[in-house]
């Protein structure tokens, strides 16, 4: 995600539109290293998050990253842009027009002449929601339902802000009553039980007699109960054929079984064609691998603009 395509040039005007006055004021002067942190000046956007993960505001505030390292960074914000909550999501634009996101927490802030100076660390609820586990529904083993860890409203607010993108990952057949996952198998047409056994029939070629295979079995040999021929050989003298299926539960018997669903949660049984098809919805996001990449993104921006990097 941090690979930056230096061939693609993003115009300054486009950048200005996206990130406001701070972005245009930022001096695109590359980066240098000081106290293990890369110095930089990269425009980015900041979303504040409430304690339950909702976005405090749909519009981000603009900020400039002044230095960054693997798990921490310094931001410079406008006077009126102090975040209302300590949990943040940073949106870092790339050269090819994408935005990479990272969850952070505000550790300290200082009011200076040129604005507010903030120290942030990677982590917090924003980072949790950005992890794959929070964005891909998983099967709950108690209720056998596919669920996401947060409320739908959280994802909706992130979706509206353009951080997440909705994707249909798959479709599952679920119980019409409780939306839990069901198992599907060929089962008794009457009660839906899977406890069915197929009876085998035997056909004696010579006399055309057909009966359940068990009637042909005697203690010492296979014998046709109709013409009493003994020592029958399967294939040459007789054949086995599939017979009826018999239900151990309700005693029903028929040739054809029906594909039947059995809900793993509420135990209701229903014909397969009556199952509800549910979309498994997940969310896609482009994540920033490391806060240190912010400096790289700044550098490549300078390169792309024609400057020689320091």
């Amino acid at each position, binding site marked *: 995600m941090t690979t930056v395509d230096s061939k693609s040039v993003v115009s300054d005007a486009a950048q200005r539109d996206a990130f406001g006055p701070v972005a245009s004021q930022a001096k695109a002067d590359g980066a240098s290293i000081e106290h293990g942190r890369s110095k930089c000046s990269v425009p980015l956007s900041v979303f504040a998050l409430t304690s339950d993960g909702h976005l405090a505001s749909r519009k981000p505030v603009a900020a400039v990253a002044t230095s960054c390292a693997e798990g921490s960074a310094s931001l410079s914000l406008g006077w009126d842009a102090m975040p209302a909550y300590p949990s943040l999501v940073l949106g870092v634009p790339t050269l090819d027009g994408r935005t990479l996101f990272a969850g952070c927490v505000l550790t300290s802030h200082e009011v200076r002449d040129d604005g507010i100076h903030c120290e942030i660390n990677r982590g917090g609820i924003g980072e949790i929601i950005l992890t794959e586990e929070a964005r891909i529904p998983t099967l709950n083993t108690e209720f056998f339902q596919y669920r996401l860890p947060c409320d739908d409203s959280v994802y909706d607010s992130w979706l509206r802000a353009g951080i997440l993108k909705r994707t249909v990952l798959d479709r599952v057949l679920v119980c019409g009553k409780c939306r839990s996952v069901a198992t599907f198998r060929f089962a008794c047409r009457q009660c839906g039980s899977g406890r069915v056994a197929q009876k085998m029939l035997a056909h004696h*070629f010579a006399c*055309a007699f057909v009966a359940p295979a068990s009637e042909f079995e005697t203690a010492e040999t296979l014998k046709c109960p109709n013409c009493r021929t003994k020592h029958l050989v399967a294939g040459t003298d007789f054949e086995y054929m599939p017979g009826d299926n018999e239900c151990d539960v309700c005693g029903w018997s028929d040739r054809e079984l029906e594909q039947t669903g059995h809900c793993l949660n509420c135990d209701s049984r229903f014909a397969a064609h009556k199952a509800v098809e549910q979309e498994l919805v997940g969310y896609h996001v482009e994540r920033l691998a490391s806060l240190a990449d912010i400096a790289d993104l700044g550098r490549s921006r300078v390169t792309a603009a024609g400057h020689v990097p320091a």
Partner: protein
Amino acid sequence: MSLLDGPRYCVATVITCLYDWVCGIKRTISSGLPELEFSHCPSVCAMVVGLNEGSGLGATIESIIGTYPRLEIVVVDDGSDDDMAQVGRAYASKYPGIVRCLSRPWRGGKSSALNIAVAHTTADVVICVDADSHLSQDAIWEIVQPFRDENVGVVSATVSVRNCFTNFVTWFQGLEYLQSIFVGRLVAARLNVLPIASGALAGFRRELLVRLGGWDVGPGEDLDMTVRIRRLGYRVTFAQYAFCHTEAPTTWKALLKQRRRWEGDGPVRHFARKHIDMAKPWHSDFKLSNMLMFLDGLTFNLLCGYGMVIWSVMVLLHPDLRPEPYAWMTFYMISVIAEVIALGPLMYYSRRRKHDAIVALAFPLMPAYRMLLLGVRIFSNTAEILWRKSFTEPHVPPHVRAVTWRW
């Protein structure tokens, strides 16, 4: 069915017809009411067994469904290559609880397919229906009525030609079926010498089928089953107005091929060989009616046929024996007159007089048609006597043919 078929039943037919006519008048005079028609209603399983009958199956099922209250339909697909199983399953899901479709992965022969169907039903009466034929509205009601009598084991039905007016081939067959089945079987059933219930439409008491272990390997399994039920001491009757409309062959070639198949397995295989014991007076299964049935079958099928052959040979060898041309004419005229006389009972029993009258217009050529069929009969019987031709019929799959007993 031979040249002699006309004269053969002529007298008996006319007597039966007159008897029915008098009885009808007597009944009308005494009660003023016709007999109550359908009062017996056992549970019925219609078995539609076939191989590659996907195209006609739907229409056959539709012609059965809804015509009888206690009805189930079992379709057995004997390992078809076409869409028969799919059509059957579609009807099974359209009419759940009424239609069932059983399909086997590979062919096993008609007899075992019928036996599969019997193993899947508990109905009192089992009715075999060919997958390419249509039943008349009351056919099932008509077939089950005779089962009121505990001694009736099999009920034969009328097979009629659906495509009578396609060409001369089907027209002749139309009249032939009317004479030898619609009227002929009525008389045979009255005389208790009816040996066959056509596979196209026939009713059986299921309990007897189970007792006998089902149908034996064919061809001719329908004749064989009827004879075996007779051997158990049950009667074979005829439901004259249970119609099964079937498609007849439309070319001479197809007709002759069909007859060659039908004729061979009848009298020689089943009467003279497999079931000959029941015509022996010292055998436990002996019954006078059964012996008469055998004699009837053997006389008219074998003796008359070969008599004709011997006579022809003699005529060829001894020009002195050759009859005068007018004798041929007389012979033919007598045959035509017998045909005309037989039309009387046909018209008396017919419920579609207009239709049947038009079919009957083929009568002047019928003796010639019957002569042709007699030729086929002699040919098939000879092939059966000498080479047991029916045991090489492709009607039965090779793996079954290889292991079954030869009678």
